[in-house]
């Protein structure tokens, strides 16, 4: 349990940094491209500020990612012994993507006045591309844990290993696409919220207007596309992990014309989800494309193989709810921008942006809860139980508490530094600095 808590906490911490590290570089190079195209120096200041934010987050993301790569072995030696040879591939490729990202981020951050603007922009592009690639690869490894393929089990031993097939596991595309879009949506709208906050105080601020426009564009497009990828991901889960689907939807009884439940509290003793709004047959239709399709309920899954529906169902509802709100705000913003042909700055809209800004990160944490807790009690679906993978080392609660304390401290510092970055508009010297 301590091992799971420590892993969950480390992941929950790392993922926020990783996500912003994937998406912020894209926003930063859009801003820089706008500067190169229009010569408007405010864009340059914006790119520099976002780049500084990216630097802080990337550094913490890099070191917390290092911790995770060790924790795979420190906490789950049984898992790594079993799976290392099968899913090492995406991790080694990720190593190179991470290398590329670190190298070009170094060039981008410290090279403003050392290389030509075009070369500098290209360095930024490399950061954005390799960041997305490394996130994609890591998620592929997780997808394999959900839908393990590419090996054969003979008497408890692994043979016929095929790392390429393991990388292209059935859940791979669905999970990686969903996660990548989530990064852009969550980061874009989070940054939009910060800029909206300052615009609510001074509507004319050119720095924050431009920041809001780019952040909304990046985050909004991803937020609108996200439900489509989510629908696809859910269909894959329905096909490959019936127990997870049942837990996500709070489905206890197996049956046709299964309803889609919105909200509700799963009552395990009674074997029903209470207080939910039920839309008949929609779950069967969404999961299998047929309103009459049968959806397996938790009651038909062996008790020792059931995930904890009391966690998975609410987490899934939170994720979907946040995602819908983000899509709504994005569509509203697009409509305002299209009608007025300028940055949407209506007060009510800015307030809504501010309100939705943390939702992307909440949705990401909830989504990971769904995929990880929904897979329990397995660490590799149907193959290896979490209890068989955990380290025999004792005293893990101590290490769990130490890391939690460390991460809380770092998180607090990062938030303070980032807010300081964006508090003020550009100063005169920033506008003139450099070439």
């Amino acid at each position, binding site marked *: 349990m301590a091992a799971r808590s420590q892993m969950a906490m480390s992941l929950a911490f790392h993922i926020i940094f990783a996500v912003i590290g994937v998406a912020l570089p894209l926003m930063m190079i859009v801003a820089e491209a706008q500067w190169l195209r229009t010569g408007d120096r405010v864009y340059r200041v914006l790119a520099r500020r976002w780049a500084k934010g990216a630097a802080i987050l990337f550094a913490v993301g890099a070191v917390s990612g290092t911790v995770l790569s060790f924790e795979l072995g420190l906490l789950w030696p049984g898992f*790594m*012994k079993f799976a290392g*040879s099968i899913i090492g591939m995406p991790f080694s490729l990720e190593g190179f993507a991470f290398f590329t990202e670190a190298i070009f981020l170094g060039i981008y951050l410290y090279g403003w006045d050392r290389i030509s603007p075009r070369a500098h922009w290209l360095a930024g592009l490399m950061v954005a591309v390799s960041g997305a690639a490394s996130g994609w690869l890591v998620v592929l490894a997780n997808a394999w844990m959900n839908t393990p393929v590419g090996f054969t089990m003979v008497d408890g031993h692994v043979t016929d290993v095929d790392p390429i097939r393991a990388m292209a596991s059935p859940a791979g595309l669905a999970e990686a696409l969903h996660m990548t879009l989530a990064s852009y949506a969550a980061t874009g709208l989070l940054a939009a919220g910060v800029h909206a906050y300052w615009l609510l105080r001074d509507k004319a601020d050119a720095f924050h207007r431009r920041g809001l426009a780019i952040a909304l564009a990046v985050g909004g497009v991803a937020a609108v596309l996200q439900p489509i990828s989510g629908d696809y991901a859910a269909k894959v889960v329905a096909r490959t992990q019936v127990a997870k689907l049942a837990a996500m939807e709070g489905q206890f009884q197996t049956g046709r014309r299964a309803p889609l439940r919105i909200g509700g509290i799963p009552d395990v003793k009674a074997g029903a989800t209470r207080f939910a709004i039920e839309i008949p047959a929609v779950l069967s239709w969404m999961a299998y494309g047929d309103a009459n399709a049968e959806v397996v309920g938790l009651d038909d899954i062996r008790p020792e193989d059931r995930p904890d529906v009391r966690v998975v169902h609410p987490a899934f509802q939170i994720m979907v709810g946040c995602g819908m709100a983000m899509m709504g705000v994005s569509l509203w913003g697009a409509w305002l921008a299209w009608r007025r042909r300028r940055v949407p700055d209506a007060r009510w809209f800015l307030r809504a942006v501010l309100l939705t800004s943390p939702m992307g990160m909440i949705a990401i944490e909830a989504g990971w809860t769904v995929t990880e807790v929904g897979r329990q009690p397995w660490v590799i679906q149907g193959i290896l139980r979490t209890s068989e993978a955990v380290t025999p080392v004792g005293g893990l609660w101590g290490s769990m508490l130490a890391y939690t304390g460390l991460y809380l401290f770092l998180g607090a510092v990062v938030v303070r*530094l980032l807010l300081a970055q964006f508090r003020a508009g550009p100063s005169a010297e920033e506008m003139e600095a450099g070439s």
Partner: protein
Amino acid sequence: MTPESTLAAIMLAALTLYALFGGADYGGGAWDLLASGPRGRAQRDLIAHAIGPVWEANHVWLILVVVILFTGFPPAFSAVMTNLHLPISLMLVGIVLRGSAFTFRAHDPSPGSERRWNHRFSIPSAITPVLLGSIVGAIATGRVEGPGGASAWLTPFPIAVGLLTLSLFAYLAAVYLTVEADDPALADDFRARAIAAWLASAALAAAVYGLARSEAPLIARGLDASPWGFPVRVATAVLAAAVLAALVGRRFVLARAGAMVQVALVILGCGLALNPYLVPPGRTIANSASPPITLKLMLGALGAGSIVLFPSLFCLWRVFKSRAIVRPKP
């Protein structure tokens, strides 16, 4: 060469590159802690300036080592991570604190923040290499999988290896900084430090060598038995003497090249001594290797990755270290 020994050789090479580049960043942090004299402030600035753009890229070598170990040799990885849980966890805390404090120091605009972050950067910089070395030393004793293996890193041999690691990292950093310093007086500060670290490293290397006979007999015999053991030891000693002469004569660019080769040879010697084991006495390169298909794909991935990696690293050094690469000796 079999695929598994090729992969093990690449892992050793990645560890060497981590020591030469990432190690020097730790060494820089240790000198930050010891910055003193009339140019203390300038010393700190030079260190920060030298590390800033490159430390994250240098750090990735360690991740590469870990990834090769868990993909290519999963049982050895599990054995190390289970038995050396505590020192590895402590080392990770050091890595996290060092990296984040360095970045925070660079980006914290609040007054007095620099002082606050200095120690959180420099103290972990000095402690982490000791832990890293003691982990390697503990593996070398051949006791980590036996009874009391979890505390094997707290015996004299691993601790001596840990101190030697710190001393070598500090030595590399000081030698590099003599080249990167603009001001001759500042270069001389680091010249004195480089010579001090040279002497400390020599003493610690002798201690490690002496302890190895009784504390890590398998490894000591491995080095004697290897046909390369003797030439590598002689070459290391000759280079060490040459670097000292170059430092005394202020031929810093030459000293830097020599110091890099010297440290690489030390690590090569360790690798030769450990061969054919990964975690002695039970786990060898051959018996903990993944299936051949994984090893071959891994080698392919490493080859393909290098095509992206090395030109990118070249760009990085061109942009930030070009002056240091081509600058004539002062």
